[in-house]
């Protein structure tokens, strides 16, 4: 029974026991006239709510892309050909995007393990894994910059392109640009938190929640890419 709210940022030792069961638990949590998200640190709840709002932003972009793609009478460029690369004389469809997907998934894997080591108070491994995550993120942004310059060199603009429907460029630059911005901010965020882990800031406070919260943001960036990959590149 959660009779008192845990102090912010410091989960009580019993924080993970006594999970509320089923609908009665939900009703109890929401009807208790206190904080609804019991035993969830406020930082984590706020990050989730931010990610929820970001979900709406990205869905608006993807829905806009869907609308212009359905409504245009000009054929849509074939992403499989637009994003093909010629490696060793053979043209491989969509290969750069596939590699970018694997890079981002790998970064999610290292981030998940960093959270785990943070709660074990293994500062070195936590920081190393977080910096590895940031390095994967930088790789991803670098490949995206390469992809952008390649398309711009081929004449793709937000208002026109030589392959087909003019809306292709607008959707592409808007969606991947906004996602790339999220990755770049994530790289900064993770690097700062990693350095603070190394410096021992959270050791003194005795609270490594921030690593998990930063991790939530990073996994969300990966999650958005899953949808962009499916709807923009594969559809």
């Amino acid at each position, binding site marked *: 029974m959660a009779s008192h709210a845990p102090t912010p940022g410091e*989960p009580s030792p019993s924080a993970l026991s006594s999970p509320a069961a089923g609908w009665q638990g939900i009703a109890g949590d929401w009807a208790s006239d206190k904080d609804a*998200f019991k035993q969830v640190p406020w930082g984590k709840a706020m990050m*989730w709510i931010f990610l929820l709002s970001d979900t709406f932003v990205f869905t608006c972009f993807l829905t806009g892309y869907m609308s212009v793609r*359905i*409504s245009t*009478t000009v054929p849509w460029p074939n992403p499989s050909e637009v994003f093909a690369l010629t490696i060793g004389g053979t043209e491989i469809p969509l290969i750069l995007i596939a590699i970018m997907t694997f890079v981002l998934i790998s970064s*999610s894997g290292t981030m998940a393990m960093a959270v785990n080591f943070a709660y074990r108070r293994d500062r070195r491994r936590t920081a190393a894994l977080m910096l590895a995550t940031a390095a994967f993120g930088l790789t991803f942004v670098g490949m995206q910059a390469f992809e952008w310059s390649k398309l711009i060199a081929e004449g793709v603009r937000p208002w026109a392109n030589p392959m087909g429907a003019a809306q292709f460029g607008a959707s592409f630059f808007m969606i991947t640009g906004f996602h790339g911005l999220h990755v770049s901010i994530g790289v900064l965020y993770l690097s700062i938190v990693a350095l603070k882990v190394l410096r021992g800031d959270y050791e003194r406070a005795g609270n490594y929640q921030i690593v998990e919260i930063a991790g939530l943001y990073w996994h969300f960036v990966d999650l958005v890419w*899953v949808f962009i990959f499916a709807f923009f590149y594969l559809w």
Partner: protein
Amino acid sequence: MEHAQGQQHPISLYLKIWGLLFVLSTLSYLVDYFHFQGYLRWSLIVTFMLLKAGLIVSIFMHMAWERLAMVYAILVPPLCLLVLIGLMAAEADYIFLSRIFFFAQGASPGS
């Protein structure tokens, strides 16, 4: 061993999910590589996408272990977006038909 705070799951769990995500990504890439078309292509893409999203949210983001009050607060609101998508798809279809109709008629406006 020191008492650990927060969520503790074995590292092997994360490695397994990582592997699964790799396999699913490879499969969705192969859908494009082998040029599947039509409903087969779309259903495969959406299936792999939803599986990947589910794994990331439930395991990597620890949603599987959160309290239900928060899980529903986060996962239910996005369902509104399905309404938006449905409305916009209907609207876009209508615009497409209007354009076909208009362009077919109005090749020489003013005549």
